[in-house]
Each structure stands twice: as structure tokens, then as C-alpha cells.
């Protein structure tokens, strides 16, 4: 015979749909399309992309940040459900691959080859501002979905949501970005993604806690 507490829960009972893992993917796809459309309409896309002949570095940086977004989104989806002993570590490898860009920038600084104009380029702050702004929308969409679940890895999930949103947002901006240097991407793209992840870590734990 169930006790009164369980009876009260059952009295409140309604069918629930299972948490749908496809929703965050759909949301990110839609938001990426919207963000690219806004970037294209307001800032324009790279001429080489429009011509169908993108520079190698554009493909490389875009591919790396896109993979980082995808890998971290896989982890966000996995960690939205409570579980003991289930890990989703692919994002760590994607992050390690993406770290090559800031690594090369750091190496060039150590060797005294870091181009000063990368630091002072006005487009750098635009890159940072636009990417982080888009990332906030993406992270907000992911947060709404994750809150329907029950993450027990609140801190990690907060990082990952920021990382995923920041990576997708930076990818969208990169389609406009006129720079063609690895060092520029290593400095400003890394800054945008790191800032998005940091904001996620600072803001989201209180939102995700349940």
C-alpha cells in the first residue's frame, strides 16, 4: 500500500513526453541558418565563399569550430539526463584539435613573430561582439532544452552549453570574416569561444540547478 506522499504524487500524475534528443539539434540548425542569414544581410559573406572557391584556411577554421560545436552539443545532449558512469568525452578531442589555432598563435608570440595588427584590428572586436551575441541566443535555446531534463553535472554542462553555443556562433561569423590567417583565428575566435564558455560557466549553474 503506497503511503500518502506517493498517493499525492500519483494524484498529480500526467503523461509526459520523453525528452527529445533531436530538439537541440534542430534548434541549433535553425539558429545557425538564422544567424548566417543575419550576418549575410548585415555584413556580407566572404567573396570566395560566394564564388564557391573558399580559401583553405576558411574551410579549416570553419570546419574545426563546427566540429567543436557538434562535439560539445553531443555532450550537452548526453548530460541532460541523469546517469552514473556514462561519459561523453568526444568534445575534449575536438577541443584539443581546436587548440591548435591558439597554440600556433602562442608559438608565434613566443618566437616574436606575432603580428601586432592582429591585436589592433577593429574587426577583432567585431568578431568577438558578434560571435558572443549570437552565442547567447544559442546557449539560451540549449539551456531551455536542458532544463526540461535533469542534468547532474551542472558545472560541466554550463561550460559545454557556452562552448557549443560559442562554437556554432563563431562558425556563423567566420563565413563573413575577411581574415585568412591562422593566428587571427587563434586569437579572436578562441577569445569568442572562450568568452562564451566562461559566460556559460558563470551564469548557467543557478539556472540549471534543480
Amino acid at each position: 500500500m503506497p503511503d500518502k506522499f506517493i498517493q499525492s504524487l500519483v494524484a498529480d500524475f500526467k503523461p509526459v513526453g520523453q525528452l527529445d534528443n533531436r530538439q537541440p539539434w534542430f534548434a541549433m540548425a535553425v539558429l545557425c541558418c538564422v544567424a548566417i542569414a543575419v550576418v549575410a544581410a548585415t555584413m556580407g559573406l566572404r567573396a570566395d565563399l560566394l564564388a564557391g572557391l573558399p580559401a583553405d584556411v576558411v574551410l579549416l577554421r570553419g570546419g574545426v569550430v563546427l566540429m567543436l560545436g557538434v562535439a560539445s552539443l553531443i555532450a550537452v545532449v548526453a548530460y541532460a539526463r541523469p546517469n552514473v558512469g556514462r561519459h561523453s568525452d568526444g568534445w575534449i578531442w575536438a577541443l584539443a584539435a581546436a587548440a591548435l589555432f591558439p597554440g600556433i598563435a602562442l608559438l608565434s608570440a613566443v618566437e616574436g613573430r606575432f603580428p601586432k595588427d592582429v591585436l589592433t584590428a577593429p574587426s577583432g572586436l567585431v568578431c568577438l561582439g558578434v560571435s558572443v551575441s549570437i552565442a547567447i541566443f544559442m546557449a539560451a535555446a540549449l539551456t531551455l532544452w536542458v532544463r526540461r531534463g535533469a542534468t547532474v553535472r551542472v558545472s560541466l554542462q554550463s561550460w559545454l552549453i557556452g562552448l557549443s553555443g560559442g562554437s556554432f556562433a563563431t562558425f556563423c561569423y567566420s563565413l563573413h570574416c575577411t581574415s585568412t590567417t591562422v593566428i587571427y583565428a587563434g586569437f579572436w575566435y578562441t577569445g569568442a569561444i572562450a568568452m562564451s564558455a566562461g559566460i556559460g560557466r558563470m551564469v548557467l549553474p543557478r539556472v540549471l540547478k534543480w
Partner: protein
Amino acid sequence: MRSDDQSLGRLMALSQAGDAQAHEAVLVACQLWLRRFFAGKIGPEHAEELVQETLLAVHNKRASYDPGRPFLPWLAAIARYRWVDRLRAIYRHQSDVHAEQVEAIDAGETVVAKLSLDRLMAQLSDGQRAAITLVKIDGLSVADAAVASGQSVSLVKMNIHRGLRRLSVLVEED
């Protein structure tokens, strides 16, 4: 009643689909499981409240269960999350808990043993484990715990603080 993972998983899947009887059955089974799971891991006057809190979380978050996956790791993750949260709440409010022998965990339940809170406690330092056990589970005052463990009063306080913080991290990492 000894609930196995598969039958609980099936019941929860039925519950998600709207079967109220299955929902009641899964909550009753979870209640029994949780009482064993939390036995000896929190002061007895907090134990039933913690079981209810966890049942409420199971009820509210049932959409997050994936019927394609084992049930007990899902339940254990929720239970551990609520347990650490409760320990921290007790710590914040400086409540006293009193010692009382409670039902031991059935050693035959291998899944329970695997997911047990003991495994988390074992990853704390000796000083942290002793301080948390004596004050937060056995219900001693900080001064008595200091005498019992051979630590200074301030060290007991620091070990509780750091131990609870470490437990929060361990729950997230495991």
C-alpha cells in the same frame, strides 16, 4: 520486494506513456530502493525527507529517463545529486543530526553496491570522511567530532566544508 533494473525500466516507460498504476508501482519500488541506498548516509531524521525529495525529483523529471537505457544508474544519479544537495543544506543551516543505527544496505544487490554512496565517500581524504561522517551523519557536535577524530575544531569545520565541495565535484564527474 526486490526490484530489478529491467522491470523498473519497463514500469517507468509505461509511466511516461500515461499509465498511473505503473507510475505508482515505480514510485513504491523506488521508495524502497532509496531507503536502502540512503541508509547510514544521512541522519535518520533527514532520511525520509531525502527519500521524499528524491521521489519528487523522480516524479518531476521522469521525462529525462530513456527507456533504452538501464534504470538504476538514472535513479542513482538523481539520488546522489539530491543526497549531496541535502548534506550541503544541512551544513549551511548548521543543523544537528543524531546518531542512530539504520538498516544496512543489502550487500547482495550488486548494482546498489556499485553505485553506492560509499564509493564517493571513499574518495575523500581520511580527515574529510571522518569529519562528515561524525558530524553530518552520526550527529556529533563539531567539538565532539574533534575529540573523536583527533582533529582540531577548525580542522573539522574545514574538512566538512572541503569534503562537501569535493563530493559535489565527484557526483558530477562520476
